């Protein structure tokens, strides 16, 4: 059941626009296809200059890697509320995490995998953003298996099942698991 890159990218783009508006209320974002071609610096699907310049540093490296074949890349643009769109690198830790989460879920909605493992992906999020991330999990929990490793109490509260890992004094890990009904969750999170 393989779709082409173009079809998946189209769908992921559309979902990314919706998700970034949801995760950055008052702001937004989008995905953009860019081509890194040494001489012509062409850009597909959007305004060319800023991104062409960004890729030119890679141009020589590309020549060696791919010969004459133009290479596609996916550029991410994010505009948090009230800010002008700037370099991705300048975003804060929490903003970068939210952007990555938006991207991951956008690809998921375009073409779901049967399971996802998310190891402490919410470590940098403040309370407001953590809530937005947990809402995503709650919204899509029936469409895939989400295995989330965390230290955060609120993330535990979103669980359908809880897996407790402990290590004894001999360096051996042990796992204990429980499916959770609502009352049990309150007790576990206490």
């Amino acid at each position: 059941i393989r779709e082409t890159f173009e079809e998946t990218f189209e769908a992921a783009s559309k979902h990314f626009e919706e998700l970034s508006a949801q995760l950055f209320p008052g702001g937004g974002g989008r995905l953009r296809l860019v081509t890194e071609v040494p001489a012509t610096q062409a850009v597909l699907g959007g305004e060319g200059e800023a991104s062409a310049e960004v890729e030119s540093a890679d141009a020589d490296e590309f020549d060696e890697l791919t010969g004459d074949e133009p290479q596609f890349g996916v550029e991410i643009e994010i505009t948090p509320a009230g800010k002008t769109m700037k370099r991705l690198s300048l975003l804060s830790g929490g903003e970068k995490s939210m952007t990555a989460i938006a991207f991951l879920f956008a690809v998921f909605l375009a073409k779901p995998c049967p399971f996802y493992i998310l190891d402490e992906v919410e470590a940098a999020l403040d309370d407001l953003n953590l809530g937005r991330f947990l809402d995503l999990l709650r919204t899509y929990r029936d469409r895939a298996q989400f295995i989330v490793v965390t230290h955060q109490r609120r993330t535990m509260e979103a669980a359908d099942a809880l897996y407790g890992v402990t290590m004894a004094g001999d360096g051996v890990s042990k796992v204990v698991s429980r499916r959770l009904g609502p009352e049990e969750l309150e007790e576990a999170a206490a």
Partner: protein
Amino acid sequence: MKGFKSFPDRTALEFAPGVSVVVGPNGSGKSNVTDAVLWAMGEQSPLAVRGQSMQDVIFAGGHGRQAARSAEVELVFDNADGGLPVPSAEVSVLRRLDRNGEGEYRLNGARCRMSDILEILSDSGLGKEGHSVVGQGRVEAIVTSKPRDRRLLIEEAA
């Protein structure tokens, strides 16, 4: 898994549908579970599972416990919906590695090549880019990576 990192004894984890949350103190073994899944799916770089050589994933011993001689991880997928191109209701992917560096892959118990495993998994988007597994401290990598890496990620999902 058995003999993998901090899990010397055979440990079975069954994940229910929906959201499964793994908790525990620092160093208890949570991310080792993440590493186990990534490893069983064919991860080739020891660095991706925090090792320097691939044998680092074999249980190295603890107080009163001897080191293991091999590591083994088996992933069992529910294939009732036929999502994986294998004619069985359950699909088992197994990877094993010995201290002397000899390893093997098994699909539903039968020895196969790593490329066979990768091919089976890639149909569901579970390929070597491994984008469905986000390791600890790795979430920001999507944002700091090069545009063409993200494209590879989408291609794999496609």
